[in-house]
């Protein structure tokens, strides 16, 4: 049971959230036409053992998208920001 400190709702249980995925990848510019960049964005992922940035959605809470710093080995969560305020 991971507990996540949502900046809007406070400390909540993992079951209220849905996991989305890697928050380190950046969507190419709208007008980018090089398929290689889009393939990289859509399909290529690291699988780190340790600290990772991830998108989570407080889907059964405030419905804000969050960026978590989570340790994939220990499940520790060291930071949680609103995606809308996270530095990209």
């Amino acid at each position, binding site marked *: *049971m*991971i*507990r996540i400190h949502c900046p809007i709702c406070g400390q909540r*249980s*993992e079951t209220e959230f*849905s996991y*989305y995925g890697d*928050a380190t990848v*950046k*969507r190419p510019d*709208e*007008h*980018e*036409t*090089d*398929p290689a960049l*889009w*393939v990289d*964005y*859509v*399909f290529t992922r690291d699988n780190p053992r340790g600290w990772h940035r991830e*998108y989570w*959605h407080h*889907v059964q809470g405030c*419905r*804000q*998208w969050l960026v978590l710093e989570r340790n994939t080995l*220990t*499940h520790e*969560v060291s930071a949680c920001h*609103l*995606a*809308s305020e*996270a530095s*990209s």
Partner: protein
Amino acid sequence: MKRLTTGGRINRDTPVTMCFDGRDLPGFEGDTLASALLAAGHKTVGRSFKYHRRRGVYSAGVEEPNAMVTLHEGAFREPNTRATCVEAQDGLVAASQNAWPNIHLDIGAVNNLLSPFFSAGFYYKTFIGPFSGTGFWMWCERFIRRASGMGRAVHLPDPDTYEKVTTTCDVLVIGGGAAGLSAALAAGRKGARVILAEQDTVLGGAILSDPVGGESDFWLKQIELELHTLPNIRILTRASVFGAYDSDTYGMVEHLSGCEGQPRQRYWQIHAPRAVMATGAIERPMVFGNNDLPGVMLAGAVRSYLNRFAVLAGQTALVATNNDSAYATAIDLASAGAGVTVVDTRTEVPQALREQAETAGIRVLRGHAVIAARGRKCVTSALVAPLDQNGQPLQLACDLIAASAGWSPNVHLWSQLYKTPEYRPESACFIPRALFEAHLQPAGLVTAPMEMAQIITDGFARGSEAAGPDGDAGTVPESFDGGPLWSGNFGPVWCAPGVKGKAFVDLQHDVKLSDIDQAHLEGYVSVEHLKRYTTTGMATDQGKLANVNALARMADLQEREIAEAGTTTFRPPFTPVTIGALVGQDHGAHVRPTRRTPIHDWHVAQGAALAEAGLWKRAWYYPQGDEDVGAAYRREAAHVRAHIGLVDVSTLGKIAVQGPDAATFLNRVYTNGWKSLRPGRIRYGVMLREDGIVLDDGATARLGEHEYFMTTTTANAAKILADFERRLQSDWRDLKVHVTSLTDQFAAMALAGPKSRALLQTLCPDVDLSPEALPNNSFVEATIAEHPVRLHRMSFSGELAYEIYTPSGHGQPVWQAIMTAGAPHRIIAYGTESMGTLRIEKGHVAGPELDGRTTMEDLGLAGLASSKKPFVGSVLRHRPLLQSEDRAQLVGLLVEGDEGARGGSLIFAKGAAPEGHGEGWVTSATYSPALGKYIAMAFVKNGQARLGEEVQIVNLLENQTSSARLISHHFFDPEGERQNG
């Protein structure tokens, strides 16, 4: 064995009568089922797992390997409960397990004679060698399954109720013995919110096994009194903390059975930033021949039965030990009048203990060990030999062997969080490593302390630390004389050389010393492999009794230290947890929410058959007379095309898209262009995923300059809203757009059929509904019976049709008003089945076609992809594989015969052998009343170029083949004259 007339912590004023194996079993309040069985002289209470050997009560706690019983009857039956943990209650019905016809005459006991065939890994060996893949294995499998196993599970629905609680506290104290009580007291005095969880029915832990009225009793009463004065301490008994999880979360089960009107168990999820683990220790068996014979028990358990339950387990007792702790048992037995001999493996015994024993009239044999228990049905004597093998074995008559090979701290919860405990050789046990930053800190016997005072001071200190720096914990309670501990003066011998007969390491699984030896000979090195190969410490044991002895034997054979061999992994649960407790109320219809449309009650009142669509209940069809679904959908579909029908489409996803950049946003998520859509107009659109595959489709209306009303398919509504939110909060933060779900806020219904305009006009006489004023793909605001509605002129059925949106609360009256006004036009309500027929006739795609694998080209929708702007998926939809010419394309099938096709059937060329994956597959199929034929939609390789070709439809599940002709999937009115008229 017998019940003493005085003493114990049982309530002699409240006798109870239980039933064991069909016979009355007397007991008292405060007894366990096990103590009542012992008091009544039941020596054999079960048969063992593999060999069906007689087994008696062995322990007095959760570690019980033998006295497994089935409780209750009928639907309430619960197998594999430990009699040592079952509270005595009037009327309790219990039965022994694993024996037929009964425990005294058990046919399965023949396995005992066949034991050479059931040694370590016997089950796995039936898979290999000359037997593999033969009927012999099948035969073994059947035999093994029947011969082994424990109690039988019940197949009836569980009539008990369970509930779940989630709670928080500052400090969770696990275990209500001396250490836990001290911890709770310190934390409580400091003002922390404390939960003290004790698995037993009362607080006290090991103190309950001390003689009544002693120093420890006085201590316990003092502490309990003070704890009850502190309102910030919540004391829970019968509550086992079974698991420690991430983020300081603990799982606990509280047993409530027997309490009138309460659930049977309550599952707690406790969030506690700090916890103290005062879980104590479990005694370890001595290993010798026939050490499973009824009459062989753990020494500490014998003392518990004597002092807590006033049951003297034997008249002539032999106490076999390698440490000091068992002397307390010996002395208490002697005071109760038993003849006692201590067989101590050590040559050096502390003088004070020896003198105490001798004063009590106990004979102490030093440097000796029991090598075998003897007796047919129970212990009648023991074979005792000097360890230096200087001299002959002695045969000593006895009816009880109380054995102690040391104790194993209950490190389970700690180990679940922090992995491997450390081995302390001088006390021969695993203890938690010192981890100062750990949120769960051990205290008491679980740390194998050398003296009693340390249990109390450590418990108090851990409780005080857990509560944080504020507040005053006061002074530490004074210690009491709790009898000798095992941890100092420990003698390493737990199994004498030259044991005779079957010597068990794991009683529950019938794992013998020789099985460990065999595993070693067969090359097993890792402890994890040893555990699985021999099944040592599996199931409810979870390393409680068997672990250390098995490891010790293995380490000996490998000529290594136990510390090097390591231990197996501890996983939750510490004690068995009923699935029912974890499930709580979330079963049957309550597994997930049920969604009902605002018009649901009307459908039910009309006798509609309901279908599940995700969480939704939808009206499937409205049977007339004894119509089945097949007859009903044909009638409904034909009626709509001939007259008029109304269908509830409230489940459609509805999203308000608002803001100055709303049109830009739609331009990005839809493949077609949105800048040109004027207010008052509606447009159909397709969305792709980032990888270029079609995600969803639907219509969006422009309500105003900066406001759009989008619909999605029922299935994708939640997913699409979440996806929009993510984009707007991350990659597209620059867009001034807000999205809001309106799915539950609006009812929606589709009025379809040639008479729909005429009917609507009577309902909305002030609104111009003429084709010029309201052409297809436009909407108008109106009222129906004074309810506000928005009429979207658009068609899914291919008929002249309107979708009517109204706030949810108005849904049912609007629906009712339309049905009433429609009577002269012969209006009917139609369900999702006929709605599907109408859309297939029309060739519209839906869920079965948008299956997450298909492209716009596959679906014949490529014309909707704008080339003038980028959109989600616009680059990757051009990947070579997605543009390949031999992809399967959407086509129609005209099916021959009177059976029709089934979704999922494969398509093969005419005359081709039906092997492999074929050239395509059927997605949606129906009988078409409009065409008078069976039709279907299908994906067929290069299908659009093959129209007119005859193919085979092969249903491999039902072994049916039919033939069909490929035609356009726009089966009915391809020009759209009906809907545009």
